[in-house]
């Protein structure tokens, strides 16, 4: 029945448009939220008959070759959480009903595409669903129809096309050596030493495509523009989940099904990861726009994930997936905080802000929780994932990379402290004396996400045992 993760959102969009009217316009976002809540429920409280492909009532009509292992389930959970938050923020930041309706429809279609990416068992199908998410993202980025939005969407289209060219070339080579595009066929072909060189070229090309989609240095130029000029509800979706599902998840799948390539591929991952961490963090230091700083921070955090993958060990994979999960939670929360600040003060320019924590206590407090987690301060969730990454690097004798990972955390702390000081602490900026805390619609999502960050940190052993460590089984 896992095909319902794709079919239900698709059918929902068709039905919403068939019965479009004033009432449907109003409930479209709520309906999307309901879909994502059901998705989260099905992962957290698994119903055996749902996950069993044999009990598919649509089996007579649809022969969809889908499968959900532990990695897919973690990704589905991340997709559910981030999409729910994005819809919730959109519900309160879009004023016109038609705009809300369009936004909800596109997000639900993107949800269908993202679910497809993590459930397919064929690399060409994976590419098709990556395109679904890409097309939805282009439109979502320029949803406000302003010049900056169109410019960023165009930049994203061009780089996205370059990424898909790399990915398609890689798929062609994989098809060439395996005679099929299923993960199983590629896995079998990758064990044949005759195809060693072609396989490495294929992995290299796919990695370039994944780096572009994931916004890693040197393919990151689209990311800060797209994330900062898109409406905040879209920035949450892009930074929280799209770059991971379209960029890093396919890379993890390819690396695990082909045995991780050879040493040169691992070295590329380690180098690109390290450079991304440093470039992203240093670029974030010099930003004045909150969302642009958060976007560069995403480049840096994606670097941590790729660095962890570069170790090629089970612990490295587990660390990468855990950091992806944590990043999707705290980055969504920090973007939601920026939405609250922008909505209440009318600006994202840190030079014009200051001391607003006393007027916006919930936003200020939750923003500190998100900041501490992203900087890797114990006992919050971000600390544990960064610790696993550093241990994985240490175990594989990559001491230099481990050192850079720790030092970059200090830089992360520096730019986030600068953000806190310039936006929330100190004397209140002139003209902002009469601002109030954001409404419940912007506060509830950040409180939920801050609670997730704290709870994942406190119940780390339980989360690790039940959710994260089983991800390593895909290497067996």
């Amino acid at each position, binding site marked *: 029945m896992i095909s319902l993760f794709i079919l239900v959102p*698709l059918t929902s969009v068709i039905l919403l448009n068939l019965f479009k009217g004033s009432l449907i316009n109003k409930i479209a976002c709520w309906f999307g939220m309901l879909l994502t809540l059901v998705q989260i429920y099905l992962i957290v409280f698994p119903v055996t008959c749902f996950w069993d492909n044999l009990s598919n009532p649509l089996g007579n009509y649809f022969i*969809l070759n889908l499968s959900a292992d532990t990695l897919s389930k973690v990704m589905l959970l991340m997709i559910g959480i981030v999409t729910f938050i994005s819809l919730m923020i959109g519900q309160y930041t879009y004023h016109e009903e038609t705009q809300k309706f369009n936004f909800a429809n596109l997000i639900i*279609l993107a949800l269908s595409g993202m679910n497809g990416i993590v459930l397919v068992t064929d690399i060409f199908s994976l590419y098709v669903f990556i395109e679904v998410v890409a097309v939805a993202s282009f439109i979502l980025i320029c949803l406000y129809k302003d010049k900056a939005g169109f410019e960023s969407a165009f930049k994203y289209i061009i780089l996205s096309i370059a990424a898909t060219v790399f990915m398609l070339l890689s798929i062609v080579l994989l098809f060439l050596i*395996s005679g099929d595009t299923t993960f199983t066929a590629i896995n079998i072909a990758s064990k044949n030493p005759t195809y060693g060189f*072609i396989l490495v070229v294929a992995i290299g090309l796919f990695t370039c495509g994944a780096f572009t989609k994931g916004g890693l240095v040197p393919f990151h130029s689209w990311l800060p523009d797209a994330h900062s000029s898109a409406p905040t509800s879209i920035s949450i979706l892009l930074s929280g989940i799209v770059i991971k599902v379209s960029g890093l998840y396919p890379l993890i799948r390819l690396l695990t099904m082909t045995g991780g390539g050879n040493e040169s591929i691992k070295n590329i991952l380690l180098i690109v990861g390290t450079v991304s961490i440093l470039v992203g963090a240093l670029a974030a230091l010099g930003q004045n726009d909150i969302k642009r700083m958060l976007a560069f921070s995403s480049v840096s955090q994606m670097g941590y994930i790729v660095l962890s993958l570069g170790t090629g060990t089970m612990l490295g994979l587990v660390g990468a997936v855990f950091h992806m999960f944590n990043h999707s939670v705290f980055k969504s929360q920090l973007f939601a905080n920026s939405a609250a600040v922008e909505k209440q003060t009318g600006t994202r320019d840190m030079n014009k802000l200051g001391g607003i924590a006393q007027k916006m206590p919930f936003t200020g407090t939750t923003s500190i929780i998100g900041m501490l987690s992203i900087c890797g301060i114990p006992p919050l969730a971000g600390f544990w994932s960064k610790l696993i990454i550093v241990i994985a690097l240490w175990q594989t004798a990559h001491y230099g990379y481990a050192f850079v990972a720790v030092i970059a955390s200090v830089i992360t702390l520096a730019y986030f402290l600068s953000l806190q000081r310039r936006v929330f602490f100190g004397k209140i900026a002139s003209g902002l004396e009469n601002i109030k805390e954001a409404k419940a619609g912007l506060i509830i999502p950040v409180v939920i996400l801050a609670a997730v960050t704290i709870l994942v940190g406190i119940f780390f052993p339980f989360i690790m045992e039940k959710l994260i460590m089983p991800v390593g089984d895909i290497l067996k």
Partner: protein
Amino acid sequence: MNYDLILLVIMMLAALMTVLSTRLLIAAIGLALTSVMITILMFKLKSPLAGVFELSICAGLITVIFISTISFVKPLTDKEIDERTKQRIKKYLALPILLILIGIILIFIIKPTTLQIPLAIQETNVRKILWDLRQVDLLGQVIILLVGVFGIVVLFRDVQKETNKK
């Protein structure tokens, strides 16, 4: 004489014409010509089904849509075309040279190989390919189409309304 090489060269020239031309109509025709060359190569590579799709959709349907749209666009003046052509040639002069260089390098790198490549599944029944073998892809393409149509409605409907008001 190696006809494949001639086809590849024509395909490359047509592709260059598509990206370098300042006239939209010539670019659309260049794209259609590229697709026709790809179609012939697909037939020669014993993939008739892929060739039929390429010819009917890429060379046919898409060209018709492009040309229909171009007919609504205000054409550039001859002076503007001359200026833009000069700018573009100056900007992309390196592109054909780069392509030739890459071609020469590849000729030296790629040597005749004895590598045994496994055969892909040979299925000629279109229904079976689309509905049984590639059903997930078909579903993905349906979603892409839906997103695309929705995007056009979202981004252009207001523009149409404003034009009607004027």
